[in-house]
């Protein structure tokens, strides 16, 4: 694993999101609670909506374009819609966000 420091936790508003540009496309960092951050692909499998612009509730996000709802924990679409988004390991340490970029690279290679 190769964790790298992305930035301060407080740069993401509570129930908000920020983006990280990577070679596999944009990764969205969601802050679901004061202490929890999830990293998932920013691109909605439906029609490419930017998930980081969606409304965050519980540990889910609703896509801003057509309201598909995704679990940030599993990446699975909820309810009647079928589809999923890639999830990436992320953790918070001393107010900083750490993202594991080996998986990003590996998915890229695969």
């Amino acid at each position, binding site marked *: 694993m190769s964790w790298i420091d992305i930035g301060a936790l407080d740069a993401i508003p509570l129930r908000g999101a*920020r983006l990280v*540009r990577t070679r596999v496309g944009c990764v969205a960092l969601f802050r679901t609670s004061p202490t929890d951050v999830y990293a998932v692909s920013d691109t909605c499998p439906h029609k*490419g909506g930017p998930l980081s612009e969606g*409304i965050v509730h519980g540990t*889910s996000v609703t896509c*801003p*374009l057509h309201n598909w709802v995704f679990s940030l924990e599993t990446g699975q679409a909820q309810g009647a819609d079928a589809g999923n988004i890639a999830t990436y390991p992320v953790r918070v340490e001393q107010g900083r966000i750490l993202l594991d970029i080996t998986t990003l690279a590996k998915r890229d290679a695969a």
Partner: protein
Amino acid sequence: MQKIVVIGAGMASGRVLEHLFDAAPDAFDVTLFNAEPRGNYNRLMLSPVLSGEKNYSEIITHDDAWYAGNKVTCRFGEPVQRIDSARKVVISAQGETPYDKLVIGTGSTPFIIPLPGHDLPGVISYRDLDDTNAMIESSARSGARAVVIGGGLLGLEAAAGLRMRGMEVTVLHIAGHLMERQLDAAAGYLLRRDLESRGITVITEAQTKAIEGNGKVARVMLADGTELPCDLVVMAVGIRPSMQLAKDAGLAVGRAITVDAQMQTSDPDIYALGECVEFAGNVFGLVAPLYEQARVLAKTLTNQADAFTVRELATKLKVTGCDLFSAGDFAEGEGREDIVFRDPGRGVYKRLVLMDDRLIGAVMYGDTSDGNWFFGLIKDGTDVSDMRDTLIFGPAYQGGAAADPLSAVAALSADAEICGCNGVCKGRIVDAIEGGAHTVGDIRATTKASASCGTCTGLVEQVLAVTLGDDFVMPTAQPVCGCTTLSHEDVRLLIKSKELKSQPAVWQELGWSTPNGCHVCRPAINFYLLADWPLEYQDDPQSRFVNERNHANIQKDGTYSVMPRMWGGITTADELRAIADAADKYNVPTVKVTGGQRIDLLGVRKEDLPAIWYDLNAAGMVSGHAYSKGLRTVKTCVGTDHCRFGTQDSTGLGIKLEKLLWGSWTPHKVKLAVSGCPRNCAEATCKDIGIVCVDSGYQVGVGGAAGMDLKETERLCDVQTEEEALEITAAFVQLYRENARYLDRPYKWLAKVGLPWVKERVVDDPENRHALAARFELSQSIYRKDPWAPLAARAETFGPLADLTLEAAE
């Protein structure tokens, strides 16, 4: 992949496609033709659209996303003209489309009596959305009159809907009582009485002789000389299966297209279903058997054995607002006995028909809650001699059980049908509940029960109540969303009465079932809180849809549009130069003049938003809020400044109104216009608030709309001065802000509370008007601000937090 061509996007074919894609998602390449210029929608729900309780978007059953997801090639608005079964192609305006298998689901065509004048403009039938829209349009003219020919289900639905829209309606029916095929004379009488009490005129045994008018319908003439002046004639006298295509192609037809139990026509590669088919001598007119056909056809197409059978049907009808039910055979006859119950006070009538100790028919009016139980007895041929004395009182009285309204549902057997449209029995619903479906919405999603015509919603709720016991709270009104059982109205009341001033307070005190709401309730609650507590509550950007959070409209490719305000549609050369410069500097691909009298810069990248805003701010421009549930535009005409007809300074008043209202948040968007004279060049009479200047002052109209619904404003009042017009407007907007439910435009809200209620508060009671306007001003002291400026100062939050494209490459 097998090429399937489907003719007709109707109730039946929509269901086949669902089953087909469920069973074999990638096996078929489907092309769907529809004569109507739209895809599948719930035809049964046209009546709520007609009456205004629903809009078209709510009754779409398959949307673009669904077709795209299943790779259906949609050819809407393109009727198939011919089938060439020898070459296996269908022919339409765009040419030929080949098929491996063809499915015909063309439904039926309304029958038009060839009376003199039947082809005059203004004579319509009632079958599809276009008919519905035509009726809505006619009803919009004040004092408009309609004659409905045909007192069956469809005619009465049309009559009830038109009446709800304020038309004067007369129903002409040829038989001695209404709906004679489904009701006996006594129930027909009660139905007539109910309709008449709503202001509908009913003429039975009516012989229509002619429709007259000069280039347009003007009157209907009856054989006895009666003359009925009218602007609209709705003919609802029956339907004919649409089988011309099949007939021309040489397929075997009788009264309709002949099919076997596998829905195959006389050509082995052509199938048919729905109202256009005849099976074993039967034709069909209700959706329940069509859904069954759809299920069978999907099996046939995926090579599984199944067979369609004709089941006995009950009709539970939903003539808007009247409760009626009939099943089986209720004609009088030898060896038949009647049991009748009447409660004149409540307008209830029930009649059971027995033969040889068995129930063979039932008719009910006014209280139909036991209908399904009786229908079960009819279907099963149960011997009812033991319960004959109490039979008419329903299942609650059998076996000495207490008269609990729920016991009737508790007593239903597992195979008792609850949802006739979708053929869902009680057992399936109970299974779904045990599998975790705990709300009507869940049941709809998992079983489709109550998802078509909706009359069984109450029964589904009762099954939930019986199965879940105390865990189920019977909903009194539609809840805001799945996070709560409270309705919007309840939540608004409780926010005020319990003085809830934050979202966590709402979630906690009102028992939200989720930790922090969802995308449906959060924007609503955020609005309610800021409308009720403008000083205390802090707006929460994370509870706003993307457009309102980013103060720009997101486009389908993720870029945004930027639209500065042009007060009252007035701009200057300097402003135009600044807009042009911004367009150049940020490579704006599209510059468009909008329908709201201002200029839209479309296709701006999110990262560029703060900078473009900064530049526009520097030229003195502010956000046009083209994205908000708030004040949008105030359109004006040139008025007295230039126009030879202008009576007042409409442009000046428009600018004052826009400066008064801008920045305010409202339940849905609010648009205004001011016209300088009744020629109305600013189109003020279809705005949420529209002011028409006249010599004596200002006519203030409210509740117009020109979007998915088209509505003319209703006159709130006439005033003499600009000051009064401004105060009335502020007071009206504030009343709307304090009372409407989120996402109701003013016209929808007005339909619920009524114009007199609003007049009482805004016009008749000056003190209350001042108070409302003062509360609006208090809120505006916080919100009358440009949102761009503070965001432009936080430009760094619009870009990515980190860019790993370089690091990852190392």
